[in-house]
């Protein structure tokens, strides 16, 4: 295999990926959440990998502006992994670029579930318990210990995992290329990704109606009726409506967002939503 590309990403680049992971939620949007901070994080590495090919570089930028959401403390690991996959893509033109986002999608939800539990529901609670007990006695050790207990494990994650992610990405893909499994794995990653997206369609989309009907003493919410037929029916339908508009009708997302905002405000004003 061509070793020049492999050496493109150095330890210095991986350190930069760790540093830039700290900006992981600088800006958030309701449509794709923290996609731009991800691009900020791995952008310089993408430039190094694809910089000599403007078209491929802009494809890579667009590839990493899709929906992304993860626990902040695992973003270094993700950054290393994605960059490793990009390096492999450059080396193996046969590899389907869709593989990268399939991997991203199938990992971000489950790993964030695990690490949100570890950081927010475990380490943070311990940090708060210690911090509260000192602060309640009027001691500045309270906030200081709170900050340290929460952030020392966090920084070990930030600065210790970019390289692990990079090596895992490289090792996994290299082995796959050698054994000719890459297409099977792409298919498998897509299946995993779609199962995870299916779960997110239910839990992250909320489309609810405010309409009620029936006599005042037995007022029934239309929303409850619809959810009784199929839980989250309207959110599910909305997802497929957008999918169809995007894929079959090739509607520009700008119009989708604009149309959605106007439609929702009008429906709220009419008391329908």
């Amino acid at each position, binding site marked *: 295999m061509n070793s020049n590309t492999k050496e493109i990403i150095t330890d210095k680049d991986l350190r930069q990926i760790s540093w830039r992971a700290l900006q*992981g939620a*600088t*800006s*958030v949007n*309701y*449509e794709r959440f923290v996609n*731009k901070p991800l*691009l*900020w994080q791995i*952008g310089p590495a*993408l430039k190094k990998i694809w910089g000599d090919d*403007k*078209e491929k*570089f*802009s494809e890579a*930028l667009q590839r990493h*502006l*899709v929906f992304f959401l993860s626990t902040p403390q695992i973003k270094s690991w993700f950054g290393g992994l994605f960059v490793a996959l990009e390096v492999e893509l450059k080396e193996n033109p046969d590899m389907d670029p869709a593989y990268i986002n*399939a991997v991203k*999608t199938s990992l971000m939800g*489950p790993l964030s579930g695990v690490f*949100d539990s570890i950081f927010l529901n475990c380490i943070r*609670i311990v940090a*708060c318990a210690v*911090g509260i007990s000192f*602060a*309640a006695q009027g001691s*500045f050790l309270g*906030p200081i210990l*709170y900050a340290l207990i*929460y952030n020392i494990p*966090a920084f070990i994650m930030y600065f210790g995992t970019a390289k692990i992610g990079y090596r*895992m990405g490289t090792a*996994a893909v290299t*082995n*796959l290329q050698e*054994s000719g499994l890459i297409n*099977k794995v792409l*298919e498998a990653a897509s*299946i*995993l990704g*779609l*199962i995870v*997206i*299916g*779960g*997110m*369609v239910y839990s*992250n989309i909320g*489309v609810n109606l405010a309409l009620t009907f029936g006599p005042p003493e037995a007022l029934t919410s239309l929303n409850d009726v619809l959810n009784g037929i199929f839980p989250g029916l309207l959110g599910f339908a909305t*997802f497929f409506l*957008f999918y169809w508009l*995007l*894929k079959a009708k090739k509607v520009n*997302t700008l119009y989708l967002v604009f149309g*959605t*905002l106007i439609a*929702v*405000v009008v429906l*709220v004003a009419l008391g329908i939503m």
Partner: protein
Amino acid sequence: MSTLVQAFLLGLLGAYCHLDWAVGSLYLNRPIVLAPLVGLILGDPTTGLLLGAELEALFLGSVTIGTYIAPDAGISSILATAFAIHAGMDTQAALLLAVPIAVLATSLQNVLWAGYSFTSKIADDYAAKGDEKGVYRVMWFEGILNALLKFLMVFLAWIYGSDSVVAIINKIPAVILNGMATAGGVLPAIGLAMLASTMMNKNNVIYLLLGYIGAAYLKLPTIALALIGIIIVVTKFDFSDFKNVLSASSVVGKEVDDNEF
């Protein structure tokens, strides 16, 4: 210290409530840290510490996880502590004054985060031109505007009193604020549809249904869905092939030299 300087410093703490996410998600935008700092600014660190302990216990369960956006504990605790120290109020009364501002800060932030779908489009255009620095500029613009919003909420509430800020904001039609909050539930459908469109076809759409049904009827968490997915993938494809994949991905930092073939 003049009111203006106090307002400015408290406003900076308000801005930090957002900027924490730009410096490593340190979780220093919580009552336990903010209230003592407010105490230092207003010259009563001890009360700040005590209120920090009390408010942190109160807001312990209120954190943003995934796409669930929690009410703003940071803005609430900055203003509640400031009101309590300044006017000698008890915590509950001070919170009653502070929480409406925090709720408003969250509503206005909803408007920003929904609106950022438009600036995302600008970022897409930069990406299409291969201009990564343009995308960074959009990100920093969005983040700084978000911090500025929180700065102003705290700054104005301290100078003019929370009642007058609430009164001014109430002039914004409720339908706009409610509409943006409601849109916050609908917009992820666009992001997820875009994501699905990169990998979904008529042969595998059934797996999206499986994930949906698992979450909707069985209330399975994502990790359970992913594990079921792994089982499906392993049974669907020949498992012996995947032994190599699994061994490859579990190798961390050592050479793969024990291939079986």
